[in-house]
């Protein structure tokens, strides 16, 4: 079975469309959206509607902190994020709010757990940026594979019984082996706002027969997204960071 996992799309239409085009060519058996459909980007309506279509066709989708903030009108975020949440709320229709409000915090499918942030306490939106956070996340679930996003920086943590997890930074487009001995925490890079220094959109492709996960990179027209961000009156940094991937 092959699973395409897309995280942190952040209302970036150009990145989302480019990634979906690349995903369809690979013909995966399952599509998973790991949350943060909206926030930061200029095309929330397009992304939410597209996501709703995909879910109707069988894709899995979980809630992200930006999705929640838009639904609940939360303001405990960074200034840019808060501004984008307000901006997004003004553009979404009730049906869009309704779709986002129904998203679950996590989903389990066979031995795979999908969650936007740490599985430790999903609604607390903890970042997994180090081995300690990875260890807490892994110990709060017995799933053999946990897939999350939220940091916008790809990583794979291997957990051997009774030992500290081992961190590995996956190379772009190079398959990372999944160990028969270990449990895994896979942090999927971002579709709509990569922060690992590479502006190309990132999604994860899992192959359960070959026991591999690949962080696939898809270059897209981020200049256009940045232009739209500017035109929409969103903070300029949100466009700038797309160009540098930070």
């Amino acid at each position, binding site marked *: 079975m092959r699973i395409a996992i897309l995280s942190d799309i952040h209302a970036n239409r150009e990145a989302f469309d480019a990634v979906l085009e690349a995903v369809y060519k690979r013909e995966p058996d399952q599509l998973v959206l790991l949350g943060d459909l909206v926030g930061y980007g200029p095309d929330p309506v397009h992304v939410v509607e597209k996501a709703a279509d995909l879910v109707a066709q069988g894709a899995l989708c979980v809630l992200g902190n930006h999705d929640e903030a838009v639904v609940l009108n939360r303001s405990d975020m960074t200034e840019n994020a808060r501004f984008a949440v307000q901006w997004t709320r003004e553009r979404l229709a009730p049906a869009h709010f309704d779709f986002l409000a129904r998203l679950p915090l996590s989903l389990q499918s066979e031995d795979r757990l999908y969650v936007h942030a740490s599985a430790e306490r999903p609604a607390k939106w903890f970042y997994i940026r180090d081995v300690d956070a990875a260890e807490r996340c892994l110990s709060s679930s017995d799933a053999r594979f946990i897939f999350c996003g939220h940091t916008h920086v790809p990583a*794979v943590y*291997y957990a*051997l019984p009774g030992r500290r997890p081992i961190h*590995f930074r996956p190379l772009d487009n190079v398959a*990372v082996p999944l160990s028969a*001995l*270990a449990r895994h925490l896979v942090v999927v890079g971002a579709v709509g706002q990569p922060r690992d220094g590479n502006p190309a959109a990132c999604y994860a492709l899992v192959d359960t027969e070959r026991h591999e996960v690949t962080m696939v990179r898809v270059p897209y027209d981020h200049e256009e997204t940045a232009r739209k961000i500017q035109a929409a009156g969103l903070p300029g940094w949100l466009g700038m960071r797309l160009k540098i991937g930070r």
Partner: protein
Amino acid sequence: MQRFEAGTVIDGFELVEKLPTGGMASLWRATNPRYDFPLVLKIPFLDPGGDVSVILGFEAEELILKRLSGPHVPRFAASGSLAQVPYIAMEFVAGTGLADVVGNAPLQVDEVARIGTEIATALAALHRQKVVHLDLKPENIILAKRGAVLLDFGLARHAELPDLLGAESSVPMGTAAYISPEQVLGERSDPASDLFALGCILYQLATGEEPFGRPATFAGMKRRLYHGPRPPRDINEAIPRWLEAIILRCMEVDRSRRYVEAAQVLSDLRNPDQVVVVRRKPQDVGVWAAITRLFRKTDERSLVGKPTMSRTQAGPSIVLAAVDLANGSDALAGEVLSETARVLASREDSWLACVTVLKTEIIGEAPAADETGRSEYLRRLVALKDWARPLHLPEDRISYHVLEAVSAADAILNYAEHNDVGHIVVGARASSAIRRHLGSVSTKVVAQALCSVSVVRLKAVEEQGLHRKAPEPIAPVERESAEPDQ
């Protein structure tokens, strides 16, 4: 635990005969009609309460062997999952185990050099595939008809794969007799570690002794950071200085002084007359030196130097510059020199092999054999050294080769292949009717070289440009014959 015996069938592999092995796995000759090469099955001893590193090593070997190809590794056939019967099925490689050869050491010098060349070739091929073996020893090397074949990748490291084994263990992993100093300190990613092990093997083949014995403790293994082995010539006077120099350079603790790439070891073993023999400083001896050493606080990490990867990725390790000096140095030779300087500049420790071809008319004739031939050979050698002088390379980075051959292109290609050259710089004369008809040296080198080639051409002067634009094809003035345009 499942017991295996002759006749047992696992996933279509029928076990035939048990082979002698070490403590980590059993080895079986096996048959399976689906594969057209002889097979061996490696089945790890998995004891539920046992060391997890055995299983990790098994998993690492499977991942790495799967990704390797070429004549210097056994072909991968299939593997069984840990959930059922874990095994790796691979090609059975027929040949002489180096472990058997080591028993006869000390060997003749040319035999040591020949075996060293084969192992260095295999290591170069392995390192090109981003894998470091990290457990190179006679037991893991088969001298087969097709060259040296490296076995057992249970401790190996692939640059693009996670290293679960390394993260798992805090004790040095490797074989005490051959492990490199940086591995003793826990580093598991530098191809230069395999060159250290190669040095230990050559030492053993040449002297009949293991350079560091087989220390059983961590402290014993660490000794090699501070104490070099006995110089090979102290043990066996028959060892020439050049071979000793090669062995000791492989075994340098500081990686900035060790060979960086297997290709360099190969090149030195193939060209003994070009090896720079440095008179070694006498070691600090005496009571006072021992006492000061005892109290000097050294950072062990600094002793082994920086990993070599930053250097190896910067550019080619060996550059071959082919220059035509039949009519002395000319403008094209000057241009070849400039381009060579640019290629060398990408990497501060690259080597340059300067090659010029002395053409012989008939195959088999050796002009150097007679008096006039000999003087022509020397004249070319002097010209070649003079040509390269403006580069101001230290003598351990440059070598000179006057090759006698019927075909200049074949001589250059042959040299490049046998010395694992990473980049060729060759000149091309202006186009001519004869050259178009017969083909030029540079054309053939470009077509057949196994590495990158820079072809240097003098920028066409205006008259030639006009010729090309002329409506009727006009043959340019013939200035050179077709062949010598290297």
